[in-house]
């Protein structure tokens, strides 16, 4: 989980922080409230997560509860990966 959190944080720093010294945001800071990530940014973040972790993301999952901070994104990815792993090892799952 820590590795995922670092990777997500790195993506946010590289793509949304354009001013040196602006990396002073915590992993729980709200993207919406801080204005750190706008709607175009969320689109890029979703695409990053989808591509990097090879997880499907439903429209219903595009809500702030999953995407509004580094921590929330990492937890979401962790849950999805855990769910996918469970499906892969269960021979009864179609």
């Amino acid at each position: 989980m820590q590795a995922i959190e670092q990777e997500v944080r790195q993506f946010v720093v590289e793509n949304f922080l354009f001013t040196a010294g602006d990396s002073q945001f915590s992993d729980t800071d709200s993207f919406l409230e801080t204005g750190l990530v706008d709607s175009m940014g969320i689109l890029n973040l979703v695409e990053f997560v989808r591509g990097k972790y090879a997880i499907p993301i439903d429209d219903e999952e595009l809500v702030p509860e999953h995407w509004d901070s580094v921590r929330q994104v990492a937890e979401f990815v962790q849950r999805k990966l855990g769910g996918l792993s469970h499906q892969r090892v269960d021979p009864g799952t179609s």
Partner: protein
Amino acid sequence: MNTSAVFSSRVLEIDPSNLANEIERGIREIVLRRFRRKGAVVALSGGIDSSVTAALCAQALGKDHVLGVLMPEYESSEESLRFANLFAEAIGIPSLVENIGPALEAVGCYHRRDEAIRKVIPEYGAGWKSKIVLPNLVEGSHYQIFSVVAQSPTGEVRRARLTPDAYLGIVAATNFKQRTRKMLEYYHADRLWYAVAGTPNRLEHALGFFVKNGDGSADFKPIAHLYKTQVYQLGKFLGVPEEILRRPPTTDTYSLEQSQEEFYFSLPLDKMDLCLYGKNNGVSAEEIGSVVGLTADQVKRVFTTIDSKLRATVYLQSPPQLIQPVDETRGPGH
């Protein structure tokens, strides 16, 4: 600042005669005295905003000093052209038609847009139609992320969430339409020594529902301070034809019919008007919700969307940024 005691569904009612006079005075001041131009060019879309803009210009400057330019393309609705002609005849201003389809084709507007769509719907091609849509803002807390809705020649409908590349590609290609129209407006303005009127209402102007250097560009914007419901009130007063008054606002930008609500505002425009007005005047979400029929949480979601659009609009509204000011260009008397 307005107080919650006077906030109601009637808060946007106007005295159309007084308002029209005030705007007409402003048009004369800007066009004739400030810019020293002889008249105004107005792009007529067949919708309420351009109709009201042209009607105000005609009253202010005289009918013979307003040119209506109708600019259909291969995907615009025939109804738009018909309504625009209807309006020009009703008001009595000179008008002409410039079909921008060939220009758009030449610059690759349609081809580039289709290529972008194929990034998410690979089979999209000749004979297909499309539009991009947002999720409903009040039915859930979903991010406002666009999807493309496409219809095959046989009527099958496909929907796909847009990737960043696909979304930006579609928007960039489609923006050719607004920018090509603006190019022609300025051609006519230059040859006639007229000024170009922009036609956005307050929702559009404030929340960035325009294309930078496309329909966002103009010499003056006489109704940019008016809420949509106020534009309708003025339209009725100024004698805009009933068919135009009744027509639902459309973008008329995509080959599938697309409302402004599903493309940008995610809420019926009359409710969006009241939410924006309430927010601008410090009215609580609870109070606004009780008037427009939404919960306080839903209104707060609307507020968040408004704030997000206001931030995005900074780029759209900004003139060219200079590294250092150039005092000579600030005009006489500086």
